[in-house]
């Protein structure tokens, strides 16, 4: 049994970790966005946010299935999504913080989908062919998410005094978490060296070049960088994560082994 698993499992721990981070980002943001369904400011946004959540859940299914195969453990998408302990989730912390209001959800979608567009553009070239195929599909979706959220960031920032203040507050809240995206780490170095995907730190300049003009058009002040650090992608999450998982894992934990 052990020998079989070793044979199947030719992927490195860093490769598995990298794919798991991608899957968990999609999973956890998809979970947060799905909370909006039926509660958005206008019906059109109920549809749009549900649609984005649906894309992200779809990406999570492909990525977590792939991660399960790479690790050779036989874990399927649902075992990956619902049956890990909190420390084994590898999403960045920004994905798990509460929606708070439409402003924060929109700014988060904008900051993250910009990153996703850049990342998927690079991963289309991945030496991991399955990952490259997922990237090609996800890139189209991320471009739509970016268009949608960037338009709203501008509308809200450059709308009324109230909407400007709320959106600015959202940006102040979220901005420190974006540092986590680009924090250097051994996983990224190994994956980059193996040609599987870029170290996320390589994307920082391009990300700022895309993000800053939109924030400027939205008349929003870009917060200064602070010493704040978050560590979700290394498995150390915020207090919000446990509550999100308690809800998301409820059925799988209550009825172990059942199929749905």
């Amino acid at each position: 049994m052990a020998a079989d698993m070793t044979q199947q499992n030719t992927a490195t721990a860093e490769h598995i970790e990298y794919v798991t981070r991608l899957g968990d980002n999609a999973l956890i943001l998809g979970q947060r966005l799905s909370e909006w369904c039926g509660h958005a400011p206008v019906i059109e946004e109920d549809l749009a946010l549900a649609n984005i959540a649906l894309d992200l859940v779809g990406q999570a299914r492909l990525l977590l299935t792939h991660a399960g195969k790479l690790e050779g453990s036989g874990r399927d998408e649902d075992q990956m999504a619902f049956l890990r302990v909190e420390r084994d989730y590898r999403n960045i912390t920004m994905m798990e913080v509460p929606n708070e209001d439409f402003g924060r959800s929109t700014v988060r979608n904008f900051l993250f989908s910009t990153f996703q567009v850049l990342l998927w553009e690079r991963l289309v070239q991945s030496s991991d062919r399955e990952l490259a195929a997922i990237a090609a599909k996800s890139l189209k979706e991320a471009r739509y998410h970016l268009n949608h959220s960037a338009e709203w960031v501008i509308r809200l920032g450059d709308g009324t005094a109230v909407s400007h203040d709320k959106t600015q507050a959202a940006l102040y809240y979220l901005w420190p978490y974006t540092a986590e995206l680009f924090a250097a780490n051994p996983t990224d170095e190994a994956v980059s060296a193996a040609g599987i995907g870029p170290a996320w730190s390589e994307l920082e300049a391009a990300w700022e070049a895309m993000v800053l003009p939109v924030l400027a058009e939205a008349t929003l002040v870009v917060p200064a960088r602070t010493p704040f650090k978050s560590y979700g992608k290394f498995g150390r999450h915020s207090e919000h994560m446990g509550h999100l998982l308690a809800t998301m894992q409820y059925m799988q934990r209550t009825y172990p082994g059942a199929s749905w």
Partner: protein
Amino acid sequence: MYTQSLSVPDGEAKGPRKVENPEYLAEFNAKIDAGGFIEAKDWMPEAYRKTLVRQISQHAHSEIVGMLPEGNWITRAPSLKRKAILLAKVQDEGGHGLYLYAAAETLGVSRDELTEALLSGKAKYSSIFNYPTLNWADIGVIGWLVDGAAIMNQIPLCKCSYGPYARAMVRVCKEESFHQRQGYDLLLQMMKGTEEQREMVQDAVNRWWLPSIMMFGPHDRDSIHTETARWGIKRISNDDLRQKFVDATVKQAEVLGISLPDPELKWNAERGHYDFAAIDWDEFWNVVGGHGQCNVDRLAARNKAWNDGAWVREAATAHAEKMAAREKQAA
């Protein structure tokens, strides 16, 4: 999803009033008698317009409020596949709401005023959504029974006399059929599972059966809107639709392996239909009247979404005005 055949008066419909004219009326009646469609720009009697505004907007409100009981389970769906299916389904309901509001707008009312009527409690929506979703099997049972009953109600509406409504219903019915199959599939999967899963299905069926057959509305002898049949808005009676639904559902319940909670349910060879127990209409009217388990919560959730979103809608309007002003200045 769901016109229950409510026909409950809402309050006065607003919009342009049209001159009543015997010649126009004769032409209108002839068109309906010939099975033709009335279109938005055609002359129509004021009562016909008001009836349609009431029915289409109640239907639209039902789609929007109907997102809440099912949305209650999106974050707790037991697998990623089921989460995706449910998200897509609830999103479809929102889409139905959107184009039904658009169909109502062709009759000279605005979405905002219809929304206002819903939020103030003046307008009705399908009472079925005032029942709670208590376990995961409720999601399957809503697809199977509630969407199933809605389809029975709505298929005749694809041929109703008002063109924009009839065309909207063609699309809605296609999507609802898909939802019904997905709901039934969810239940089949659970019935193949553990004892606890089968108990969940039976519990859900026990709670949703009577509310589902009440969706067809009061008995024909008690129905207050007889003109809807004359106008080709309602083509099949409440009781006929209900019987058709019961007859179809009994067999599906057998395949599923659950029992329907009605000891009087049995085949009547003489009638060629299933007999079923008398319906407790007090329960129906209590829920319609605002006293169901979830009436208050549903309306509060819609009001909260609308009020919390006010600053977003105002920002969109303000920004659009700024852009228009800038363009004008640049020109």
